[in-house]
């Protein structure tokens, strides 16, 4: 088995674990971490499978970078929501942390 395939399989495993964590009920923070595991898994698959050809393919690298940016943004939003939900007096919350 090539290294790339190994990466891809680990990525798939991570994705499955992460997806289960996001889908199943739990504390928001736990689910946010699970989402990051899931996202990393998907990106790992992307990089892993693309390496089969031998040489370095720049396209997946660019995709992974973009994917990381998207994941960071989503995580930030999720954290902001979770924090506000947890804050005392969530109803009156008017923070500027969107």
């Amino acid at each position, binding site marked *: 088995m090539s290294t790339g395939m190994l990466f891809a399989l680990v990525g798939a495993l991570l*994705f499955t674990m992460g997806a289960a964590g996001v889908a199943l009920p739990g504390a928001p923070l736990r689910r946010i971490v699970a989402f990051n595991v899931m996202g990393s898994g998907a990106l790992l698959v992307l990089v*892993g499978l693309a390496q089969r050809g031998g040489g370095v393919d720049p396209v997946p690298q660019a995709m992974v970078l973009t994917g990381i940016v998207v994941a960071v943004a*989503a995580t930030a939003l999720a954290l902001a*929501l979770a924090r*506000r939900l947890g804050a005392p007096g969530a109803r009156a919350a*008017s923070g500027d942390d969107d």
Partner: protein
Amino acid sequence: MTDPLPWLVVLPLAWASVAFLLGPGRGAVLAAFGVALQCALAFELAARVQAAGALRYAVGGWGSPLGIDWYVDGLAVLMLGLTQVVALPLLLYARSYFGHAGAAGRYFWPLAGFLIGGMNALFVSADLFNLYVTLEIVGLAAVGLVAAGGGAAQLAAALRYLFATLLGSGAFLLGVALIYGACGTVSIELLGPLLAGEAPRAVYVAVVLMSVGLFLKTALFPFHYWLPPAHGGAAVPVSALLSALVIKASFYLLLRLWLDIFAPLVQPLAWLPAVLGSAAILWGSWQAVRAEHLKLLVAWSTVAQIGYLFLAFPLLATQAAALDAVVFQTVSHALAKAAMFAATGVVIHVTGNDTVAGVAGVAQRLPLTLFAFALAGVTLMGLPPSGGFLAKWLLIDAALAEGAWPLVLVVLLGGLLAAWYVFRVLRQAFLLAPPTEVAVRAPRLMEWSALLLAAASVALGVRGIELARLIAPVGAS
């Protein structure tokens, strides 16, 4: 006039950024002007597509594989037009609505701009990875809109929505990764011939992952669990935008993929969406019939109406009318649902009560709004003359031609259930209400924008032929 397409993506992002810089609650006028301009651009683009056929762009001149490609055909330009046309009255409505609702509107304008910009980019993206990115932009902006200025219940709904949408786009991303691994490209144009023959097994997994991810984002039964709290709990203009447009974005993507590159692979699966769609129609309608709260009723109706979009899937391969039916349902539901949420918002604003029982007497106090609600209801029930009726007719016609009787029965039953929940509200509205001392006046702008949207959904039933003409090349290819 310069090329309208880049402006359709740049303009909303631009006014959204300016609105953000202006500070909380500002930017309404800017947004209205921006969307009005986008409307004109979308129509200009539609005229060009109709004249010259599908258009292809390389953004910034880079071209694939590293650059971004755009591709606009009849279906894409239809969605672009629909989005701007529905958004314009809703933004005017929102301006009046948030004038009264204080904190809830603080971040509405920038988020709405990012949402519309994201959707416009989604409709024209020509490669799977860009589609993923735009899908995320739309999802994150939508979650932000649901959460903005809400209480605990609304935040919880937003968080639930966020996890659902992240899960959906995560599955989509994994699918993209598998396809790239198998085929070495994510360009839809290049993938076409690659997937037409014998596709590797990984591609099948990718197709399933991406489809399920999009089912989840489109809230197809049984993945609809996140929709009623999110759409039922958000501020009214947000619910309207979400129910009318956002779910259509992911649906558009699914339709596009199933019609185009996935078509050779999904034939054996084509009945699955129809079965889920049938369940959505029956379950969603039944929940709407039982709903106590007005906005929840409308939100459950969305769950049901999404089902109709999927009923046509087994017929798409053989019946040209099936695609027409899907398009008519998409457009008329977008208009009617936006109108219905808008009308509901007026009712809640004036009566201060968001239960179905609280509607009593509205026929006397808010005839215009009730008329808008009723017209939107006519479309949802699929009664003539309305876009919803044409959709229903085309769907039944296509199903009969295939001998697919179960679909016909589901369509008819769904129409009756829709009549049940719509008339539940209407008959309550006709009841004589005890006189109230507090007379809250209905804002004119809100009433008229609701009526305008509802009237458009009905008028579609009379002047629908342009729509059919616009998508005709897609159906032929």
